[in-house]
């Protein structure tokens, strides 16, 4: 039912590290609001469990199980602020659309079972490479593809993510935009690499359209966002687009590039959220204006957020830069020139909205409210910033895992 290999170990390790970072942030986040922090932490661990199943499944049933464990936990976490209307709305929206996608996933698995008589990915792969493929199989594969595209939130299946990210408690948003997105990509890559590898040509045009739409729309819409969480939601959509580029380059074995990119992205995003949560709490606002003058008010937090933003924007020497570099060079190796050029242009546009935050911190006037950090947050922030710097300086350590 499950297979442990380098891929699953590496991604599970990354998932555990990211969850641990969020775990440390949780204690303080729910400090004065919730009665049942134990519920929240239990669900968090349960989500992690789902993610690990998604990284190591070798059976369609396990894939579905993993995705459902992850998703249902998240529906609860998104709505975990019971008295906050927007949190409730986010949880419910996510649930409605997520169950819709799950239906597609299950439908797809059923059709593939009908065509191949097996849930096991090894057997399905053998069926694909044998060449006698029935139309039913293709329909099933497309349905599974739709479900996976929904989970990784790419255009046009991205609509849930800005609303859910904005409505959920900030920490849950951090969790969703890092661990959950990486889990979805891990499962996506694993499914197509181990199972549908030989029929990749069949869907490559779909992936191309979706990828182009995602990186363009994600970056363009992010330009006009005023809410920081929404900004990161669109930023997450555009990063999903870059990761899609790596998925499309699967033929040259891009697991290490995805892993490196995901690590850099996850670490930088958690670093940003750690700073953002402190600012949100002090300023009672989640807009970009809340960051005005942070450079004067708390130079440490401002510097850390600046470095995280630079990493997300793909500026050397941070991990974000090399991650993009690896993905683009793999894409070029696979002949995806048009998409790579689009990706490079849009990532230049992306620099604009990351710098919007940096400029707010350093060039706008500050107000009187002070922003304080505590030991847990300071530690996490230092860890995140230094790891994203170290990854950028010594990429070999991660790149050689596979």
């Amino acid at each position: 039912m499950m297979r442990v290999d380098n891929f699953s170990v590496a991604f599970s390790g990354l998932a555990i590290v990211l969850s641990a970072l969020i775990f440390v942030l949780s204690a303080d986040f729910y400090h004065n609001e919730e009665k049942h922090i134990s519920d929240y932490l239990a669900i968090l661990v349960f989500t992690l469990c789902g993610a690990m199943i998604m990284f190591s499944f070798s059976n369609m049933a396990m894939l579905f199980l993993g995705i459902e464990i992850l998703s249902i936990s998240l529906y609860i976490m998104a709505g975990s602020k019971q008295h906050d209307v927007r949190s409730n709305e986010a949880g419910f929206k996510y649930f409605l659309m997520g169950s819709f996608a799950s239906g597609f996933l299950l439908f797809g698995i059923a059709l593939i079972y009908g065509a191949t008589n097996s849930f096991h990915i090894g057997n399905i792969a053998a069926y694909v490479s044998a060449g006698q493929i029935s139309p039913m199989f293709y329909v099933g594969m497309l349905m599974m593809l739709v479900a996976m595209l929904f989970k990784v939130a790419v255009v046009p299946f991205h609509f849930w993510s800005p609303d859910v990210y904005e409505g959920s408690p900030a920490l849950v948003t951090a969790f969703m935009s890092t661990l959950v997105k990486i889990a979805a990509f891990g499962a996506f890559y694993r499914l197509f690499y181990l199972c549908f590898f030989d029929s990749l040509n069949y869907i490559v045009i779909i992936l191309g359209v979706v990828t182009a739409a995602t990186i363009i729309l994600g970056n363009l819409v992010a330009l006009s966002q005023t809410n920081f969480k929404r900004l990161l939601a669109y930023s997450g959509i555009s990063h999903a687009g870059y990761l899609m580029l790596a998925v499309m380059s699967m033929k040259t074995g891009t697991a290490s590039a995805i892993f490196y990119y995901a690590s850099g992205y996850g670490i930088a995003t958690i670093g940003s959220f750690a700073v953002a949560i402190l600012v949100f709490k002090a300023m009672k606002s989640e807009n970009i204006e809340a960051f005005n003058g942070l450079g004067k008010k708390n130079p440490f937090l401002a510097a850390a957020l600046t470095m995280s933003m630079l990493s997300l924007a793909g500026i050397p020497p941070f991990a974000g830069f090399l991650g993009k570099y690896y993905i683009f060079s793999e894409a070029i190796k696979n002949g995806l020139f048009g998409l790579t050029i689009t990706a490079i242009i849009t990532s230049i546009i992306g620099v604009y909205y990351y710098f919007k935050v940096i400029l707010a911190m350093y060039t706008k006037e500050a107000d009187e409210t002070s922003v304080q950090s505590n030991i847990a947050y300071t530690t996490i922030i230092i860890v995140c910033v230094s790891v994203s710097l170290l990854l950028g300086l010594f990429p070999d350590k991660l790149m050689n895992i596979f």
Partner: protein
Amino acid sequence: MLTDSSLIAPGMLIPLFPLIGFLINGLFGKYLPKSITGWIASLAVLASFCCVFYMFTNLPSTGSLHIDLFNWIGFANFNISFGYLIDPLSITMMLVVTGIGFLIHVYSIGYMHDDEGVTRFFTYLNLFIFFMLLLVIGSNYLVMFIGWEGVGLCSYLLIGYWFKNDAFNDAAKKAFVMNRIGDLGFLLGMFFILFNFGSLDYAEVMKQASLLPVGSALLVTITLLLFVGATGKSAQIPLYTWLPDAMAGPTPVSALIHAATMVTAGIYMITRSGVLYAMAPFSMEIVAIVGVATCLMAAIIGLMQNDIKKVLAYSTVSQLGLMFAALGIGAFASGMFHLVTHAFFKALLFLGSGSVIHALHGEQDIRKMGGLSKYIKVTFITFLIGSIAISGIPPFAGFFSKDEILSKAFEHSKIIWAILSISSMMTAFYMFRLVYLTFFNDFRGTEVTKKHIHESPSTMTIPLIILAVLSIFGGFIGLPSVLGFAHKFQQYLSAVTAPAQHILDESHAAEVSHSTEWILIFTAVIAAIASILYARYKYISNKEQPAEDASLTGINKMVYNKFYVDEIYETCIVKPLKVLSDLFLVLIDKLVIDLVVNATAWVVGLSGRTLRLVQNGNTGFYVFAMVFGIIVLFVIRLFI
């Protein structure tokens, strides 16, 4: 080649001490008492001097020591190592840099004692010594270039040391820009060398160059480009105008950087590239012509200046011209010899003028001085010794080196000899004009100033005395053969200058006879004495004083205003460039580039704002969009 490993360690330490001094003062200077920082800096330079002296006594003049610190830049087909080359030439330069550098450091302790930023001052000064040592110790052009740029930076920082004064900042910027123009030449020369010889290492470049035909276009190009660099750093026509303005810096800086060491970097560089120049006779001619012209022009301007430091500055430009003339006629060792003696007496003169300025609380106009010999005896006597030395009166240091260049010039070309001799007479005249106006007759300043005139502290007078002794006896290292001595200095350098000299000798006439040389010596000495006497007649007997600015007319006015060179540069180069850049700003930058950039940003922003509207918050619409997307995917894949 000497392989004695015991010399490697002191060789490596030479540039390190000033760097350490720089780091200590630069990083921890604010925690240290101000009185200590000067001594730390001085000791750092003294330690370097000891290392150099050790090398000097232990390294035979035929030997050279090559130390490769690390492999610096490695590409497919070329390697540049960060290496040191210690041979008689670099040792000579380093002895001057660290020896005189140390004296000037000690002098500065007294001179700068009540300045607020004294720590910063010594930090820069140590950094300068470090870069200057790097310049002369490097074993390839790139290391030399680092030093070259570094001393330019320090020069900039120190000219503008009193940064609250805008005029001083302008002078610093001017020096920097002028030097950058020269540096571009140096840089291009280096690219040519690297491109054609595949190496920047002196030995390798010289070896490959000597295989080319004499006068080949490549060598002429390289040497002329390098010479452009030299005209910038060593203040020759057309790039000399920064040096007089550089006097804005504190006087010890003028003595160290703008008289004794940095400005001689060009001389060193050409001597170091001797083989290249010897293979390019055309460039040698250019060097000689520029040197002679600068020597004469600066001497003429020096006749009419009234600022004590400006007189010395033009004198420096003129003397540097003399050295370039020596190089241009192939007398490398003579040029180096004059470099050394000039470092002695010009440092002495600058420090002496500093002592005068110190005594008069910042007054630099010689029209407001006079009669100072009664009040500041040590300064007066040492200044007088310096003036005699630069005028070329035997047996003072300047006599031997200047005479040697003149006699070499005579055998090369009578015209060059004549112009250099006239310039030397002018030198003697303006130096004694300075001495008489400053130290003789009655004091012309205010009574208040007169009351406060005082001799400088011993940290200032002792370096003066040591430099005075060197200015008297320093010339004995190069007693000429006409007096029956072996020319020690020339012999010491011969291992370095021999290859270039060898190439030159093949195409050159024999030396002048001893009798001719005696006649030349007598002519020169008599001319110098006559100039001094004329200055005495004019300023002591007739008690003449420099005319007021407004009353000058004709040629005097032109000379007083330095031939209007600055103004000519301003109208012919600076203003047209400014107009051009304004034009580009309005036409290209504002109109074309800004428009394109802003239009792109506007389109991108608009599309972002429009696409945003799709995200309307309605779950029903989201699901509809999803279904629509799915249908599109299925249509693409299953029906097309």
